């Protein structure tokens, strides 16, 4: 029985605490990385993930099985992350000097430098596009599932991901030397 099915069966039996515990175990790390890809800062991501699970706990009785737990949680997490950024009223840009992240070194492109570049590259994307990029590139979510998470059409998501990917690639290439 996969995680979704197990959690669903526990919810149907009214075992909310047990179901919630399974959700934390199965999804907390994945959700953290997804949120981190949107808000970029570790402490912010931590806040958002906590808020996500708090809202999920309160909404558990109203969960309807028309979408899976996985999709439902990602939807809450994405909305919380985007709301967080709107409240913060800043577009976190990691490009240029004085950014939060700095290059690990200048001689050659090693793994850590490339990942740091990746964070900076993602930071240049608008917040909603970061969500699209994260779900597709890292979580390898299908476009249909992303549509349920983000409330957008498959066509719009494909276009958004295409532009995001191009932008990230151009950034990495232009900043690698």
């Amino acid at each position, binding site marked *: 029985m996969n995680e979704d099915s197990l959690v669903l069966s526990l919810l149907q039996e009214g075992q909310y605490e047990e179901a919630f515990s399974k959700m*934390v175990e199965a999804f*907390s790390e994945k959700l953290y990385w997804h949120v981190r*890809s949107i808000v970029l800062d*570790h402490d912010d991501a931590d806040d958002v993930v906590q808020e996500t699970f708090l809202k999920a706990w*309160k909404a558990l009785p109203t969960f309807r099985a028309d979408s899976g737990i996985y999709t439902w949680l990602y939807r809450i997490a994405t909305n919380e992350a985007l709301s967080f950024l709107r409240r913060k009223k800043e577009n976190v840009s990691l490009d240029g000097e004085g950014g939060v992240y700095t290059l690990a070194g200048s001689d050659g492109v090693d*793994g850590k430098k490339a*990942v740091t570049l*990746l964070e900076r590259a993602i930071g240049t994307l608008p917040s909603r596009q970061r969500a699209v990029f994260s779900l597709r*590139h890292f979580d390898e979510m299908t476009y249909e599932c992303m549509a349920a998470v983000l409330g957008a059409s498959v066509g719009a998501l494909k276009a958004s991901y295409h532009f995001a990917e191009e932008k990230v*690639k151009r950034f990495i290439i232009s900043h690698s030397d």
Partner: protein
Amino acid sequence: MKSRNAYIPKERKDWEVPSGYFDDLKSRLSLIPAMADSPAENGLHAERIVPAPRRRGAWVAALSAAAAAIALLFVLMRPSPAGEELNPADGIQLYESYALADLIPRTDPYLYMTDDDMDY
């Protein structure tokens, strides 16, 4: 030539995360049911959640009640055909007077005198 995706790493695990963070995160999240109100304590049980159709029924009932109230108000505030506000009791009295009018005998001669009858 590198494929498009080859430039973009698939891993985020090298992004800075404090050591032991995920175990700590799970521990903190596990405290939520104890700290927050239980969904059951809120009176919310899955089987008692009003489904969407019943919620719509409640709206229809409320709307109907409001329409009936407005109609009643209109009837009560509508001016009477005679232009006067009638007390229901007065109305009944008037009806009875009119209904009985034809039965009252013509006993007062002055009411029915003609010019010929007048003594000038």
